[in-house]
């Protein structure tokens, strides 16, 4: 799921709202502060997971299965006696890493293609416009699910843990199109502006005009979307992992944790509630940052 795709629906870049600019700017700053602190907290947890987690997230202790919260285990233990809090902490690392990659990789590819398409026109341009029509009338997430099934779950790859590479590949394979469309539209708009015409009239080379004059002024929306997309990618990945198709056991991942703890939900509700809350709270933090950025960028 990419934000730019649901954009006509969520409309984070709503220009129809007639609001006073200063008000929007003030609210933008407030959103950035609140959202930014939430996101920063998650990032810190991910980076310092080793120091924060009291236990090894994979270490089983069958003598202390399904322990209640408190004592040595802040959030108790799961069915295999693993410390739930530590698993949540380490899951932050996995979810954030994959979420960021699932947003940034398609953004980079899409920006490259979209900028080329918009600036130079030609075949790339036609292709991007056709592909976006296709993506909009296709159940993208159902397709992700099927693709992940067909790809299977390979081993860890470089700095990526088990199952992470196929998730990133599948997201990038479709997500770039959305970014390409976005950037293409912006490039088409900016390239007609007088300062770009002036740069061209000055005989600057086309790549130089594109990189130094067009792109920097065409990426505002993209920046907002990529922030929103990190959260949506985490949500989608957690969902796919819940279904058994994203990150495989025993890796701690929020969606997978919900799946593995589901049988014990009736009695140990926190086993399921906490990972789900983590997804939502991080998502809302990212949404606030994106929304606040949008408010601020609209000022300039």
């Amino acid at each position, binding site marked *: 799921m990419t934000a730019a795709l649901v954009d006509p629906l969520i409309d984070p870049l709503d220009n129809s709202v007639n609001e006073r600019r200063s008000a929007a700017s003030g609210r933008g700053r407030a959103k950035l502060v609140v959202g930014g602190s939430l996101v920063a907290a998650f990032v810190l947890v991910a980076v310092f997971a080793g120091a924060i987690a009291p236990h090894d997230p994979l270490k089983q202790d069958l003598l202390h299965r399904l322990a209640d919260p408190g004592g040595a285990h802040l959030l108790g233990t799961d069915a295999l006696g693993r410390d739930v809090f530590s698993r949540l902490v380490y899951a932050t690392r996995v979810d954030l890493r994959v979420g960021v990659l699932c947003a940034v990789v398609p953004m980079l590819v899409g920006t490259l293609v979209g900028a080329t398409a918009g600036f130079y026109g030609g075949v790339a341009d036609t292709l991007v416009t056709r592909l976006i029509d296709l993506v909009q009338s296709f159940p993208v997430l159902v397709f992700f699910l099927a693709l992940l099934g067909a790809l299977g779950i390979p081993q860890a790859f470089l700095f990526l843990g088990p199952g992470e590479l196929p998730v990133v590949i599948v997201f990038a394979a479709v997500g770039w199109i959305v970014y390409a469309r976005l950037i293409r539209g912006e490039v088409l708009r900016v390239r007609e502006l007088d300062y770009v015409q002036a740069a061209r009239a000055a*005989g600057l080379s086309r790549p130089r005009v594109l990189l130094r004059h067009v792109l920097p002024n065409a990426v505002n929306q993209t920046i907002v979307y990529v922030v929103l997309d990190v959260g949506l990618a985490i949500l989608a990945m957690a969902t796919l992992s819940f279904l058994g198709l994203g990150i495989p056991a025993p890796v701690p991942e929020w969606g997978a944790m919900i799946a593995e703890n589901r049988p014990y939900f009736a009695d140990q509700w926190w086993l399921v509630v906490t990972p789900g809350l983590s997804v939502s709270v991080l998502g809302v933090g990212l949404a606030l940052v994106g929304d606040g950025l949008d408010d601020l960028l609209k000022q300039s």
Partner: protein
Amino acid sequence: MLQTTGLGVKGSGVTGLEVRGLHVRYRVPAGLGRKPSYVDAVNGADLSVAAGSSLGVVGESGCGKSSLARAICGIGPITSGSVSVGGVELTRRRDRAAARRVQMVFQDPTSSLNPRRTIGSMLRELLTVHGLRTGAAVDRRAAELLELVGLPASALGDRPHAFSGGQRQRIGIARALALEPEVLMADEAVSALDVSTQAVVVDLLHTLRAELGLSLVFISHDLGVVRAVCDSVAVMYLGTIVEQGPTEMLFESPRHPYTRALLDAVPRIDVVRPPGSARLSGEPPSPLDVPTGCPFHPRCPVAVARCRTEQPVPVEIDGQTVSCHLWPHGS
């Protein structure tokens, strides 16, 4: 040659800008299944502007003034015809050295400067890319350019939003001058400014033109300003230059019915006329559907039968060029 100063070069005949038979045609893509149509925005324009002199281009909105300017500047299409500067032809695709010979000052002070770049970095980029200065001389030249347009060197560190409309137009002029062009195009360069600022910027353009020996093409809605500062004037109508000649002659004895209509619409010639107030009867012109024969005939008060079918060719009368059947060859 660039540094030739004084009014001495004015009208001296040194070749500046020469435009021959310039044609600009846009393809207008039509919707699904329909044929694309064409707009002939400039229809065989001939112009010449000597080094150090200035030409005013006037005409209603949509008559092709910007298309003409952009074609000359190398940023708009040239369908046919030629543009040469100093006797050398410049094609649409220009290398750096060729591009630098014609520069443009744009209309809109808000969109004519890259909002993300400081004035200094913008000027430095131009100077270094073109190899006009190196090392410490780059910064010195950038400051010099600002000084030339009447801005302090301290402005180099600021971004465009820090400046007023008039100041931005000055910066736009400095940007154009940075490349030491031979031809300066000013496309409605003052229309967006308030009246008092307009006068200052117009003044600046013409002083610089004289000092630097530039050919200046000054596109404007404002007949009063054109009369005050341009050496010669070209009147455009639906892509065609219908009349052209020395300013005083053209204003004193306009020969083309359209020029007359334009001038009649001005109660007093030296008063600033709001754009688009020309009291012309009939449908406003659509470049998508240019009439046959003389493009002006549907609105012309003195049209004759032949005007509907036959396109008039330019004739020269006392240094004034007119395209109208009322002025037959040899008259």
